[in-house]
Protein backbone atom coordinates (compact mmCIF):
# COMPACT_ATOMS: atom_id res chain seq x y z
CA UNK A 1 0.00 0.00 0.00
CA UNK A 2 1.30 3.45 -0.92
CA UNK A 3 1.94 5.61 2.13
CA UNK A 4 1.68 9.36 2.26
CA UNK A 5 4.91 11.31 2.33
CA UNK A 6 5.97 14.64 0.95
CA UNK A 7 7.27 12.91 -2.19
CA UNK A 8 4.03 11.04 -2.88
CA UNK A 9 2.34 12.04 -6.13
CA UNK A 10 -1.37 12.77 -5.74
CA UNK A 11 -3.98 12.35 -8.40
CA UNK A 12 -7.73 12.80 -8.28
CA UNK A 13 -9.68 9.58 -8.74
CA UNK A 14 -11.21 10.36 -12.14
CA UNK A 15 -14.20 8.10 -11.49
CA UNK A 16 -15.58 10.67 -9.07
CA UNK A 17 -18.51 12.91 -9.90
CA UNK A 18 -18.27 16.24 -8.14
CA UNK A 19 -20.14 19.50 -7.89
CA UNK A 20 -19.24 22.81 -6.28
CA UNK A 21 -21.80 24.20 -3.82
CA UNK A 22 -20.91 27.72 -2.79
CA UNK A 23 -17.32 27.31 -1.59
CA UNK A 24 -17.62 23.59 -0.86
CA UNK A 25 -17.52 20.55 -3.09
CA UNK A 26 -19.69 17.43 -2.95
CA UNK A 27 -18.17 14.28 -4.43
CA UNK A 28 -19.99 11.11 -5.47
CA UNK A 29 -17.97 7.87 -5.43
CA UNK A 30 -19.78 5.78 -8.00
CA UNK A 31 -18.30 2.40 -7.04
CA UNK A 32 -19.12 2.88 -3.36
CA UNK A 33 -22.39 4.71 -3.96
CA UNK A 34 -21.24 7.17 -1.29
CA UNK A 35 -21.27 10.94 -1.15
CA UNK A 36 -18.63 13.12 0.52
CA UNK A 37 -18.34 16.83 1.15
CA UNK A 38 -15.20 18.96 1.44
CA UNK A 39 -15.15 22.34 3.13
CA UNK A 40 -13.69 25.47 1.55
CA UNK A 41 -10.06 24.48 2.07
CA UNK A 42 -10.74 20.87 1.05
CA UNK A 43 -12.51 22.12 -2.06
CA UNK A 44 -9.48 24.27 -2.87
CA UNK A 45 -7.19 21.26 -2.51
CA UNK A 46 -9.54 19.22 -4.72
CA UNK A 47 -9.31 21.94 -7.38
CA UNK A 48 -5.52 22.10 -7.19
CA UNK A 49 -5.34 18.31 -7.64
CA UNK A 50 -6.90 18.65 -11.07
CA UNK A 51 -3.24 18.46 -12.06
CA UNK A 52 -1.33 15.58 -10.39
CA UNK A 53 1.34 16.86 -8.02
CA UNK A 54 3.45 15.80 -5.09
CA UNK A 55 2.36 16.38 -1.52
CA UNK A 56 5.30 18.77 -1.15
CA UNK A 57 4.23 20.81 -4.18
CA UNK A 58 0.65 20.95 -2.90
CA UNK A 59 1.77 22.11 0.54
CA UNK A 60 4.10 24.71 -0.98
CA UNK A 61 1.30 26.16 -3.09
CA UNK A 62 -1.05 26.25 -0.10
CA UNK A 63 1.59 27.86 2.13
CA UNK A 64 2.03 30.55 -0.52
CA UNK A 65 -1.69 31.34 -0.56
CA UNK A 66 -2.79 30.84 3.06
CA UNK A 67 -1.70 32.42 6.30
CA UNK A 68 -0.06 30.00 8.68
CA UNK A 69 3.07 28.10 9.46
CA UNK A 70 4.25 25.78 6.67
CA UNK A 71 4.77 22.83 9.00
CA UNK A 72 1.30 23.28 10.47
CA UNK A 73 -0.26 23.46 7.02
CA UNK A 74 1.60 20.32 5.95
CA UNK A 75 0.38 18.46 9.04
CA UNK A 76 -3.25 19.45 8.45
CA UNK A 77 -3.01 18.63 4.73
CA UNK A 78 -1.60 15.17 5.44
CA UNK A 79 -4.54 14.44 7.76
CA UNK A 80 -7.05 15.51 5.10
CA UNK A 81 -5.22 13.62 2.35
CA UNK A 82 -5.22 10.45 4.46
CA UNK A 83 -9.00 10.75 4.80
CA UNK A 84 -9.36 11.41 1.07
CA UNK A 85 -7.17 8.40 0.29
CA UNK A 86 -9.18 6.15 2.63
CA UNK A 87 -12.39 7.35 0.97
CA UNK A 88 -10.94 6.58 -2.45
CA UNK A 89 -11.12 10.17 -3.63
CA UNK A 90 -7.43 10.43 -4.50
CA UNK A 91 -4.92 7.96 -5.89
CA UNK A 92 -1.33 7.91 -4.65
CA UNK A 93 1.78 7.12 -6.69
CA UNK A 94 5.34 6.86 -5.48
CA UNK A 95 7.80 8.89 -7.57
Amino acid at each position, binding site marked *: MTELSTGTILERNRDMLFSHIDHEV*VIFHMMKGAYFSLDEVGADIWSRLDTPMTVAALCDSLTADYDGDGAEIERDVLVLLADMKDAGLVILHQP
Partner: protein
Amino acid sequence: MRKTVELGGWRYCGDILPPGGVAVETDAPADITVTVTAVPAAPEDSSPGHPLWRNLTDGRILLSVPGIGRFCLSGGDRVDVEPAAGADPVSLGLLLSGPVLAVLNRQRGLLPFDGAALGLNGGALLIVGASGVGKSTLAAVLAQQGWPVLADGVVSVSSRKDGAELIRGAPCLRLWRRSARMLGLNPEEYPPLRPGVPRFDTQWDGLPPRPRPITGIAILLNRAARPECERLSPGQAVACLTRALWSRPAYAEDRPGAAALITDLAALTSSAPCWRLTLAEDLGGLTPTADLLKQSIGL
Protein backbone atom coordinates in the same frame (compact mmCIF):
# COMPACT_ATOMS: atom_id res chain seq x y z
CA MET B 1 -64.50 -1.40 -11.10
CA ARG B 2 -61.13 -0.04 -10.07
CA LYS B 3 -60.97 1.61 -6.66
CA THR B 4 -59.35 4.93 -5.81
CA VAL B 5 -57.84 5.69 -2.40
CA GLU B 6 -55.90 8.57 -0.90
CA LEU B 7 -52.94 7.98 1.38
CA GLY B 8 -50.34 10.46 2.54
CA GLY B 9 -51.78 13.09 0.21
CA TRP B 10 -51.36 10.86 -2.87
CA ARG B 11 -54.29 9.43 -4.78
CA TYR B 12 -53.90 5.86 -6.06
CA CYS B 13 -56.21 4.16 -8.56
CA GLY B 14 -55.87 0.57 -9.62
CA ASP B 15 -55.99 -3.15 -9.19
CA ILE B 16 -53.70 -3.16 -6.15
CA LEU B 17 -53.75 -0.36 -3.58
CA PRO B 18 -51.71 0.52 -0.51
CA PRO B 19 -53.26 -0.50 2.83
CA GLY B 20 -54.61 2.27 5.03
CA GLY B 21 -55.86 4.45 2.17
CA VAL B 22 -59.17 6.32 2.41
CA ALA B 23 -61.63 5.61 -0.41
CA VAL B 24 -62.43 8.62 -2.61
CA GLU B 25 -64.75 9.26 -5.55
CA THR B 26 -63.68 7.17 -8.52
CA ASP B 27 -64.05 10.08 -10.95
CA ALA B 28 -61.44 12.07 -9.04
CA PRO B 29 -58.15 12.26 -10.97
CA ALA B 30 -55.50 9.86 -9.68
CA ASP B 31 -51.86 10.73 -9.11
CA ILE B 32 -50.76 7.12 -9.52
CA THR B 33 -52.35 4.38 -11.62
CA VAL B 34 -51.59 0.76 -10.73
CA THR B 35 -52.23 -1.99 -13.27
CA VAL B 36 -51.75 -5.73 -12.84
CA THR B 37 -50.12 -6.96 -16.02
CA ALA B 38 -47.05 -8.77 -17.30
CA VAL B 39 -43.82 -7.01 -16.34
CA PRO B 40 -40.55 -7.71 -18.15
CA ALA B 41 -37.77 -9.46 -16.27
CA ALA B 42 -34.56 -7.53 -15.65
CA PRO B 43 -32.43 -7.62 -18.81
CA GLU B 44 -29.74 -10.27 -18.55
CA ASP B 45 -27.24 -8.28 -20.56
CA SER B 46 -27.26 -5.30 -18.22
CA SER B 47 -24.48 -4.58 -15.76
CA PRO B 48 -24.64 -6.37 -12.40
CA GLY B 49 -26.39 -3.35 -10.91
CA HIS B 50 -28.53 -3.37 -7.80
CA PRO B 51 -30.14 -6.69 -6.82
CA LEU B 52 -33.64 -5.16 -6.70
CA TRP B 53 -33.60 -2.11 -8.97
CA ARG B 54 -32.83 -1.97 -12.69
CA ASN B 55 -33.01 0.97 -15.10
CA LEU B 56 -34.28 0.26 -18.60
CA THR B 57 -32.97 2.23 -21.56
CA ASP B 58 -36.35 3.90 -22.14
CA GLY B 59 -36.38 5.47 -18.67
CA ARG B 60 -38.61 2.91 -16.99
CA ILE B 61 -37.41 1.49 -13.68
CA LEU B 62 -37.89 -2.12 -12.61
CA LEU B 63 -38.25 -3.27 -9.02
CA SER B 64 -38.05 -7.05 -8.53
CA VAL B 65 -38.77 -8.42 -5.06
CA PRO B 66 -38.56 -12.23 -4.82
CA GLY B 67 -41.78 -13.76 -3.51
CA ILE B 68 -43.67 -10.47 -3.84
CA GLY B 69 -43.58 -9.40 -7.45
CA ARG B 70 -42.14 -7.20 -10.17
CA PHE B 71 -43.00 -3.52 -10.59
CA CYS B 72 -42.35 -1.39 -13.65
CA LEU B 73 -42.45 2.37 -12.94
CA SER B 74 -42.76 5.05 -15.59
CA GLY B 75 -43.60 8.71 -16.00
CA GLY B 76 -43.93 9.40 -12.30
CA ASP B 77 -47.53 8.19 -12.31
CA ARG B 78 -47.75 4.67 -13.73
CA VAL B 79 -47.05 1.34 -12.03
CA ASP B 80 -47.38 -2.00 -13.79
CA VAL B 81 -47.33 -4.89 -11.33
CA GLU B 82 -46.87 -8.61 -11.87
CA PRO B 83 -47.45 -10.27 -8.49
CA ALA B 84 -45.46 -13.42 -7.67
CA ALA B 85 -47.49 -16.60 -7.25
CA GLY B 86 -49.18 -16.50 -3.83
CA ALA B 87 -47.86 -13.02 -3.06
CA ASP B 88 -49.29 -11.30 0.02
CA PRO B 89 -51.45 -8.37 -1.23
CA VAL B 90 -50.60 -6.30 1.86
CA SER B 91 -46.89 -6.60 1.07
CA LEU B 92 -47.57 -5.55 -2.51
CA GLY B 93 -49.54 -2.54 -1.26
CA LEU B 94 -46.89 -1.52 1.27
CA LEU B 95 -44.27 -1.45 -1.46
CA LEU B 96 -46.53 0.90 -3.43
CA SER B 97 -46.71 3.49 -0.66
CA GLY B 98 -42.99 3.25 0.17
CA PRO B 99 -40.18 2.51 -2.29
CA VAL B 100 -42.41 2.61 -5.37
CA LEU B 101 -43.91 5.99 -4.45
CA ALA B 102 -40.39 7.28 -3.80
CA VAL B 103 -39.17 6.38 -7.28
CA LEU B 104 -42.31 7.83 -8.88
CA ASN B 105 -41.56 11.01 -6.92
CA ARG B 106 -38.06 11.12 -8.33
CA GLN B 107 -39.38 10.56 -11.85
CA ARG B 108 -41.49 13.69 -11.23
CA GLY B 109 -38.34 15.59 -10.24
CA LEU B 110 -39.13 15.50 -6.51
CA LEU B 111 -36.86 14.49 -3.65
CA PRO B 112 -38.37 11.52 -1.73
CA PHE B 113 -37.06 11.75 1.82
CA ASP B 114 -37.50 9.13 4.49
CA GLY B 115 -38.92 11.04 7.42
CA ALA B 116 -41.66 13.25 8.77
CA ALA B 117 -42.64 16.91 8.45
CA LEU B 118 -44.09 19.34 10.98
CA GLY B 119 -45.45 22.86 10.67
CA LEU B 120 -42.88 25.54 11.54
CA ASN B 121 -43.02 29.31 10.95
CA GLY B 122 -45.65 29.01 8.23
CA GLY B 123 -43.70 26.30 6.46
CA ALA B 124 -42.42 22.78 7.04
CA LEU B 125 -39.63 21.46 9.24
CA LEU B 126 -38.39 18.15 7.83
CA ILE B 127 -37.15 15.44 10.19
CA VAL B 128 -35.39 13.00 7.88
CA GLY B 129 -32.74 10.34 8.16
CA ALA B 130 -31.78 6.74 8.50
CA SER B 131 -34.47 4.10 8.67
CA GLY B 132 -35.55 3.11 12.19
CA VAL B 133 -33.55 5.82 13.98
CA GLY B 134 -36.62 7.45 15.57
CA LYS B 135 -37.77 10.17 13.17
CA SER B 136 -41.51 9.57 13.58
CA THR B 137 -41.21 9.20 17.34
CA LEU B 138 -39.34 12.50 17.63
CA ALA B 139 -41.99 14.10 15.42
CA ALA B 140 -44.67 12.70 17.74
CA VAL B 141 -42.92 14.23 20.77
CA LEU B 142 -43.06 17.63 19.07
CA ALA B 143 -46.64 17.03 17.92
CA GLN B 144 -47.63 16.47 21.54
CA GLN B 145 -46.20 19.94 22.23
CA GLY B 146 -48.59 21.41 19.67
CA TRP B 147 -46.65 21.23 16.40
CA PRO B 148 -48.98 20.36 13.48
CA VAL B 149 -48.12 17.16 11.61
CA LEU B 150 -47.75 17.54 7.85
CA ALA B 151 -46.31 14.26 6.56
CA ASP B 152 -44.67 10.95 7.44
CA GLY B 153 -43.13 8.13 5.43
CA VAL B 154 -42.20 9.28 1.93
CA VAL B 155 -41.77 13.04 2.40
CA SER B 156 -42.07 14.58 -1.08
CA VAL B 157 -40.09 17.77 -1.63
CA SER B 158 -39.84 19.98 -4.69
CA SER B 159 -36.45 21.69 -4.84
CA ARG B 160 -35.63 24.47 -7.29
CA LYS B 161 -33.30 27.44 -7.27
CA ASP B 162 -36.18 29.73 -6.27
CA GLY B 163 -37.06 27.65 -3.22
CA ALA B 164 -38.09 24.28 -1.86
CA GLU B 165 -41.54 23.05 -0.85
CA LEU B 166 -43.14 20.10 0.86
CA ILE B 167 -45.59 18.95 -1.81
CA ARG B 168 -47.91 16.41 -0.19
CA GLY B 169 -48.64 14.82 3.14
CA ALA B 170 -51.20 13.91 5.76
CA PRO B 171 -51.35 14.37 9.55
CA CYS B 172 -50.40 10.78 10.36
CA LEU B 173 -47.35 9.33 12.11
CA ARG B 174 -46.44 5.65 11.87
CA LEU B 175 -45.30 4.50 15.29
CA TRP B 176 -44.14 1.22 16.79
CA ARG B 177 -46.14 0.00 19.78
CA ARG B 178 -43.28 0.70 22.20
CA SER B 179 -42.96 4.29 20.99
CA ALA B 180 -46.72 4.85 21.11
CA ARG B 181 -46.91 3.61 24.70
CA MET B 182 -43.91 5.70 25.72
CA LEU B 183 -45.83 8.72 24.40
CA GLY B 184 -48.88 7.77 26.45
CA LEU B 185 -50.92 6.65 23.44
CA ASN B 186 -53.02 3.52 23.30
CA PRO B 187 -51.81 1.85 20.10
CA GLU B 188 -54.83 -0.45 20.00
CA GLU B 189 -56.94 2.60 19.11
CA TYR B 190 -55.17 2.91 15.76
CA PRO B 191 -55.11 0.65 12.70
CA PRO B 192 -52.04 -1.60 12.51
CA LEU B 193 -49.82 -1.34 9.48
CA ARG B 194 -50.56 -5.00 8.80
CA PRO B 195 -51.91 -7.88 10.89
CA GLY B 196 -49.33 -9.14 13.37
CA VAL B 197 -46.98 -6.15 13.02
CA PRO B 198 -46.93 -3.88 16.11
CA ARG B 199 -46.78 -0.64 14.11
CA PHE B 200 -49.69 1.78 13.90
CA ASP B 201 -50.83 4.78 11.88
CA THR B 202 -51.57 7.42 14.54
CA GLN B 203 -53.63 10.50 13.65
CA TRP B 204 -52.68 14.05 14.69
CA ASP B 205 -53.73 17.64 14.21
CA GLY B 206 -52.44 18.98 10.93
CA LEU B 207 -52.84 21.95 8.60
CA PRO B 208 -54.88 22.38 5.41
CA PRO B 209 -53.22 20.43 2.58
CA ARG B 210 -51.15 22.68 0.30
CA PRO B 211 -47.48 23.01 -0.65
CA ARG B 212 -45.45 24.57 2.14
CA PRO B 213 -41.97 26.12 1.99
CA ILE B 214 -39.22 24.21 3.75
CA THR B 215 -38.18 26.22 6.80
CA GLY B 216 -35.61 23.79 8.21
CA ILE B 217 -34.24 20.25 7.97
CA ALA B 218 -33.13 18.07 10.88
CA ILE B 219 -31.10 15.07 9.69
CA LEU B 220 -31.02 12.06 12.02
CA LEU B 221 -28.38 9.48 11.17
CA ASN B 222 -27.54 7.77 14.46
CA ARG B 223 -27.99 7.66 18.21
CA ALA B 224 -25.58 8.36 21.06
CA ALA B 225 -25.55 8.53 24.85
CA ARG B 226 -26.30 12.26 24.74
CA PRO B 227 -28.28 14.18 22.12
CA GLU B 228 -26.31 16.54 19.90
CA CYS B 229 -27.29 19.10 17.31
CA GLU B 230 -24.88 20.63 14.79
CA ARG B 231 -25.63 23.21 12.10
CA LEU B 232 -24.43 21.96 8.72
CA SER B 233 -23.04 23.85 5.76
CA PRO B 234 -24.90 23.31 2.47
CA GLY B 235 -22.27 20.87 1.20
CA GLN B 236 -22.21 18.87 4.41
CA ALA B 237 -25.99 18.75 4.35
CA VAL B 238 -26.04 17.42 0.78
CA ALA B 239 -23.75 14.53 1.73
CA CYS B 240 -25.89 13.75 4.81
CA LEU B 241 -29.20 14.05 2.96
CA THR B 242 -28.16 11.44 0.39
CA ARG B 243 -28.48 8.96 3.26
CA ALA B 244 -32.03 10.11 4.02
CA LEU B 245 -33.60 9.30 0.67
CA TRP B 246 -35.89 6.43 -0.18
CA SER B 247 -34.84 4.01 -2.95
CA ARG B 248 -31.69 5.92 -3.92
CA PRO B 249 -30.13 2.98 -5.84
CA ALA B 250 -33.02 3.23 -8.32
CA TYR B 251 -32.19 6.72 -9.53
CA ALA B 252 -28.81 7.96 -8.33
CA GLU B 253 -26.23 5.24 -8.80
CA ASP B 254 -25.23 6.37 -12.28
CA ARG B 255 -23.54 9.61 -13.30
CA PRO B 256 -26.58 11.50 -14.69
CA GLY B 257 -28.80 10.45 -11.79
CA ALA B 258 -26.22 11.39 -9.19
CA ALA B 259 -25.55 14.74 -10.88
CA ALA B 260 -29.25 15.60 -10.95
CA LEU B 261 -29.62 14.54 -7.33
CA ILE B 262 -26.71 16.70 -6.17
CA THR B 263 -28.14 19.69 -8.06
CA ASP B 264 -31.56 19.30 -6.43
CA LEU B 265 -30.11 18.68 -2.97
CA ALA B 266 -27.81 21.70 -3.32
CA ALA B 267 -30.78 23.92 -4.18
CA LEU B 268 -32.55 22.61 -1.08
CA THR B 269 -29.65 23.00 1.36
CA SER B 270 -28.84 26.47 0.04
CA SER B 271 -32.38 27.65 0.76
CA ALA B 272 -33.11 26.06 4.16
CA PRO B 273 -31.04 25.68 7.34
CA CYS B 274 -29.94 22.11 8.07
CA TRP B 275 -28.90 20.45 11.30
CA ARG B 276 -27.39 17.03 12.03
CA LEU B 277 -29.29 15.79 15.07
CA THR B 278 -28.04 12.86 17.11
CA LEU B 279 -30.77 11.23 19.16
CA ALA B 280 -30.41 10.02 22.71
CA GLU B 281 -30.10 6.23 22.78
CA ASP B 282 -33.12 5.61 24.98
CA LEU B 283 -36.66 6.62 24.11
CA GLY B 284 -36.88 8.57 27.37
CA GLY B 285 -34.22 10.92 26.02
CA LEU B 286 -36.39 12.09 23.17
CA THR B 287 -37.80 15.09 25.03
CA PRO B 288 -34.29 16.53 25.68
CA THR B 289 -33.50 15.82 22.01
CA ALA B 290 -36.61 17.73 20.95
CA ASP B 291 -35.66 20.59 23.31
CA LEU B 292 -32.17 20.69 21.79
CA LEU B 293 -33.63 20.87 18.28
CA LYS B 294 -35.98 23.70 19.26
CA GLN B 295 -33.08 25.58 20.87
CA SER B 296 -31.02 25.17 17.69
CA ILE B 297 -33.88 26.41 15.55
CA GLY B 298 -34.20 29.41 17.84
CA LEU B 299 -37.52 28.60 19.49
